[in-house]
């Protein structure tokens, strides 16, 4: 079993729809959870960061963590064509010396005008 599983998509939605992305993981020690957005031929940029369980909202973006189910989600409300990108989830354990992130393979999202 891969440490982090993410459906690669692609996911096509009409403009204005809600986009729902998720990742599952196997390591119960993960405490830090991140979502990165990557536009074509660009480096990933940090979109959302969450520590432990719960929800975090930033504008049209909401990140959710359910540690009991080992499941994290990203929701994009009122999606725009500019949201078309690949979204990668990432996570890590706490503590010094654990500097490595485990990444999902990314989920390509296309928002159709």
């Amino acid at each position, binding site marked *: 079993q891969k440490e982090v599983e993410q459906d690669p998509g692609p996911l096509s939605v009409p403009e204005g729809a809600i986009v729902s992305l998720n990742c599952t993981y196997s390591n119960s020690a993960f405490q830090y959870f991140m979502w990165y957005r990557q536009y074509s*031929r660009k480096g990933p940029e940090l979109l959302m*960061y969450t520590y432990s369980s719960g929800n975090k909202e930033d504008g049209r973006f909401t990140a959710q963590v359910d540690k009991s189910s080992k499941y994290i989600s990203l929701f994009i409300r009122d999606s725009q064509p500019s949201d078309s990108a690949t979204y990668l989830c990432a996570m890590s354990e*706490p*503590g010094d*010396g*654990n*500097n490595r992130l485990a990444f999902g393979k990314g989920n390509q999202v296309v928002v159709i005008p």
Partner: protein
Amino acid sequence: DVKVTQSSRYLVKRTGEKVFLECVQDMDHENMFWYRQDPGLGLRLIYFSYDVKMKEKGDIPEGYSVSREKKERFSLILESASTNQTSMYLCASSFGFRSGNTIYFGEGSWLTVV
């Protein structure tokens, strides 16, 4: 804003050439990383460094080496480039645990080996 700069965006090299990819960060981060990204394989860690002159192997270090002589600079070296090293290479940096291990990426270097 965090700035991670990769000096070369697009390179074409011949098989057997020595290739240097340079990366500089301006946030005084202790940790720096080199990844490669390939379709269907996602991001794979090549090497990382948690201090000057320190390095640790990642998941796919074979065929690569790194150098970190200054805190802000981390170089990836392909001693003898091969066609299977054609890829997008991403440099990243972080404060590590103190910032929840969030890492910040550069724009990427597209390397084609012919």
